[in-house]
């Protein structure tokens, strides 16, 4: 797997869809590709947010810490972006991410990511657009829930 394939993966992430290919390449180049063994944690709930991850290969579980122990609330597959909200809002991790099987991910460092955003407004716009879309979706869901 090379930089090119990682760029292809990044392309599949909605948040990065509209970003200029050269910038995606820079993003991929400045990120690290890391492997997690099955059961190894990306990070734990409450940890400081230091990076976002794009899953390149494998699956990971999203776990929430409850008084009754960890419960799995979702599962992430290839091309999923995780941990981006934490680094954007500068809040601790809201959930634990654990590799469900041997998993390869692209680790995007927080500092590098924010610097890229500061440097390239076009990238920031793409992110904002995606966040706005998410908000819209959430609103729609709320409306749907309240009307049901």
């Amino acid at each position: 797997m090379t930089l090119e394939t990682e760029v292809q993966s990044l392309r599949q992430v909605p948040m990065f869809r509209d970003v200029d290919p050269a910038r995606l390449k820079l993003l991929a180049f400045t990120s690290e590709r890391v492997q997690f063994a099955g059961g190894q944690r990306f990070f734990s709930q409450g940890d400081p947010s230091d990076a976002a991850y794009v899953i390149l290969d494998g699956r990971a579980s999203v776990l929430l810490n409850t008084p009754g122990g960890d419960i799995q609330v979702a599962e992430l597959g290839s091309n999923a972006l995780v941990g981006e909200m934490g680094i954007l809002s500068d809040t601790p991790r809201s959930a634990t991410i654990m590799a469900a099987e041997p998993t390869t991910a692209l680790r995007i460092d927080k500092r590098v990511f924010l610097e890229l955003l500061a440097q390239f407004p076009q990238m920031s716009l793409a992110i904002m657009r995606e966040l706005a879309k998410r908000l819209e979706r959430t609103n729609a869901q709320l409306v749907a829930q309240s009307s049901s």
Partner: protein
Amino acid sequence: MEKSLFRYIWTHSKRDQMIICAVVLASLPFYFMSLDLPRQIVNQAIQGEAFRDGNPTAPFLNLSFDWPGWLGGGGSWEIFEGFQVGRVGLLMGLSFVFLFFVIVNGAFKYWINVSKGVLGERMLRRMRFDLFSMVLRFTPDALRTVKSSETATIIKDEVEPIGGFIGDAFITPVFLGTQAITALVFIMVQNVWLGLIALSVIAVQFTIIPRLRRELLRLGKQRQLASRQLAGRIAEVLDGIEVVHVHNAYGWERAEIGHRLFNLFTIRLKIYNRKFFVKTLNNFLAQLTPFFFYAIGGYFALRGTLDIGQLVAVIAAYRELPPPLKELIDWDQQRLDVQVKYDQVTQHFAEDRLGPLLESREAGEADQPLTGSFVGEDIRIAGPHGDLIIEGGAFTIELPTSVALISNGGAAASMLARILARRSLEFSGRIRIGERDLTQLPMAVTGHRIAYAGVDPILFPGSIRDNLVYGLRSKPLGRLKEDRQEMDRRIAEALRTGNPIESISDQWVDYERLGAKDENELDRILLDLLDKVGMGDTIYLFGLAGRIDPERHTSLAERLVEARHRLRDTFQSNGMADLVEPFDPACYNSQATIAENLLFGVPISDEFKGRNLADNAQFRDAIDRAEMTDDLVRMGLQIAETMTEIFEGLPPGHSLFEQFSFIGADELTEFEAILRRRGRGEGSLRREDRTRLLSLPLAYIEARHRLGLLDDAMTGRIVEARGLVREVLEKAGSAGVEFYDPEGICSAAPLRDNLLFGRVSYQVANARARVAEAVAAVVRELNLQEEVERVGLEYQVGTAGRLLSPQERASVNLVRCLVKRPDILVIDGALAPFDEARSQQLMQLLLDLLDQQSLFMVLPNDRQAGDFDVQMRFRDGQIITDKTAAPAPRPSMPEPDAPQRIAGEVA
């Protein structure tokens, strides 16, 4: 220092000066002979005066003296009647005698010059040492105004010309003066009138030139001060560079230095103009005399009152006259010049700025433990502005004890602490320990029995160990083996120049006093103390990053390979095998750079490091032979293309460049130009372009950069090329690279690389921390921790300890005090860099460690004073001492967490 430079020189070198003078005088007859010979050759041999009476032969080497008239006269005394030779024989004979004298004169000159040079160097050494001794004696008052960089400039640069002059101080006037007088006398003997002409021109030279040069001296003085201040200012800016950055004062600083340089230039320009004007005038006057000789001497010769031989000899003699004269005038100029310099130097080290002579050696009977009643009476301490801070203060304390000096925001506690530590003597009153007056204790006693740790931990460049044992080096205890002859020479020179005869390679550390047998035990004591003050982990990490010297760390070196295997086994058995990719002579290491894979070793010399490798002829030769150059250049092109593409648009100097790019921001355009040239199809690449491109893939790590440049075929070829690279380098006798050996130590690589013998994977999440833990576990298991930490003691602290954090500096400072085992330890703000919890812990530690000795500690308030036996307060200029009613039982030191977790990254 002597007020007069000449007296200083004479006091310290009269013997040498006189010997050289004697030789100079002994050389004069030969000089005179060589002047007289040309006349003889012309008159007797060429013109044939010796054969005038039709003699076919004439005596050669006839040694006879005519009795001077006042001894009766008339008769002559023949020592050797000489050989009878023909005309050609006489010419040849006389010419060879001339040649002989030329050689003898040359030999004399050589010896005199060498002796003068050596004499000058010795005096320079003495003078520099004297000045340095005075640096150690500067009073606290003087130190407030003395600039360190100016002082350094004085000792290094300003005395240099003085040293150069010393060799000439007495000899030059003697030598040149006698030479000039000889030549002048010779001319006089030949023809009085010509002699008088020469004499009068010289008289003019000697009166006018020095007058003109007086202005030069004044300018020289100005220049010396201006350049000294320039050096001082540059050092100030450098020391305060942070403030310059913070307040964006570049413009101002640049203008300020620019202005100074302008002033300096102006002064130098004036000097320059004047100097060459004087020189021109001097040359003119010197040439005036030959004019008279040719005109007047020629006239006499035509008239027949002067024979041509005489005229030739006079002109030859005169040719010899100007150089000595010129040099003599130069000497006089130099004399005044260095006298000015010397005055400037002695002013800097004026007596009123210096303290009493240091006598740090003899402790004698006074060297008794500083215990017993510690009594202060009628103490008056004045503040910096003359206000009285303590007036009529008194105290009585039984030592050993622990005393809290509670400042409550005032200056009194700190000032008293400095007085107790003998850092300051600016008080009146009496302070006694037992029967001894504190201020009268010799330095040898206080240096050994009192320690002081102030706010500013002063560290010297060198290793941590050097800094820790600094307080133990009061005098040399034993001589290490030294080449006997070399030692005698060193000591003889030291005695001749007033330097100390001790060598720093002697054993200076008093192990016995510390209860240590040798260096190793001392290290153990140091490590124990460092661990106690909380610096153990740091030292361990320094050790892992340090390099081992197989000579010094023999036992560690022996066991390192074992530890390496153990670590590998641990990785295998714990399923961590993919965390570290080992260096294997037969495999490509995808976690390492291509350069590292090609060299399979660690560069020692700079020409094999980083980008220089691409330029290294031997390395290029090797990869050429392996037919890899074209492939690597192709990779370089790919990297350059990718980098220019993805880093385009980032402003130069952006931190991402530094962190990630192969190419610096400023090089980006150059690589773009290379790519463009290639794109336009301008044939093959230029040689420099190829070298630049070649340097890119050398830093490429497949696992990290993931550009997909390497396939199995390529990695296989790189591994094959390894052998060739090694072969070529070894054949060329290059010592620039130390190669990896799975069963041996690579002393050029850090300790941790030697342990891992591989690279931590970039791809496995959290690999570094896990590897670090595994390494720590193995190190503990094999009991190597102390050895590793011992390597850590060799960590270099940098200028003023800047390579350490403030907390580390403060810790080193504390341990330096503790390791001396002082009877009295004074702590005044040394714990300031630590947070409250740490400083509380350290305070307890100090109280525990010094329960048999005395601890004086300045505290900001009495919150923590309860742990001390005695509390000292300062109110209305009085000193109030209270015994703490019942000192709180000291909680024992919290046990260090066992087993200790060693944090930090390992690779």
